[in-house]
């Protein structure tokens, strides 16, 4: 079971709490918007990622479970 970060860039308003709570994976660009790559989350970071997603005032940050289905 692996998890990935995703952000809804439309609802994101650059509050920046995600970066404070998950600095290992989330950086902020020069305008305060989150930047991260699409690598799966390390298992010990998943709880922190969830906390960061819950802290987001606009629910822009998402922690998504990897689908195990093979692509068509």
């Amino acid at each position, binding site marked *: 079971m692996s998890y990935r970060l995703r952000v809804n860039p439309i609802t994101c308003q650059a509050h920046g709490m995600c970066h404070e709570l998950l600095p290992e994976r989330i950086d902020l660009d020069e305008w305060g918007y989150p930047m991260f790559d699409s690598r799966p989350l390390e298992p010990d970071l998943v709880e922190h990622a969830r906390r960061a997603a819950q802290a987001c*005032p606009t629910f822009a940050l998402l922690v998504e479970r990897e689908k195990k289905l093979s692509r068509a």
Partner: protein
Amino acid sequence: MMLPLASGSVTWYLTRSTGAVALLLLSASVVLGVADVRRLSSERWPRFVIDALHRNVALLSVCFLVAHIITAVLDSFTSISLLDAVVPFIGSYRPFWLGLGAVAFDMLIAVTITSLLRQRIGYTGWRAVHWLSYGSWPIALVHGLGTGSDTKGTWMLTLDLLCLLAVLAALASRLPPVFSEHPERGRLTLGGTGAFLVFLAVWVPSGPLASNWAKRAGTPTANLHHEPSHATR
């Protein structure tokens, strides 16, 4: 020294104290809420701390509010019912001023429930209801001044004043960005705040601080001569 049991019940004192603490916590919540939306932060106060603190202080103030209501209902001195806590102006004890408390409480119930169910309601819906929290504060303050047995006391007045100043400071921080995007709303808020302050300046000295307020406020006759007044030590 006056024993509490001699001039009133434990629940009556608890209702007053929890009410005062609830006002203090609500004021703190408003200040933190404004700091949150204005994105104020520092090295030692990161954004997530301000945000979490705002949420927790708000929840705590609701807990004190619930205690305030329960103790008022349980108290045998007055005939305040549970219904009076949510349906305003139907009670027999200082109906108008108590009713204001019910109005504020109703608003805070809406804010609390929508906040707890934020994920399901979605951001825009939650935000729309959250504006009620600004409205609930002045109503809660006037409720306290009007119903409070402690209003005349120095410490209570000082607390009221400090809370008022804190919320005004928060408002001063909140308004400038509102003016740049919605000048109408900004003007309305400024006007409303000014009117509220004028109201306080006129009413407080001539109302709760003046003589015979208990009767004028609608305290039932049966309670009048037993009303635990603020006795000086």
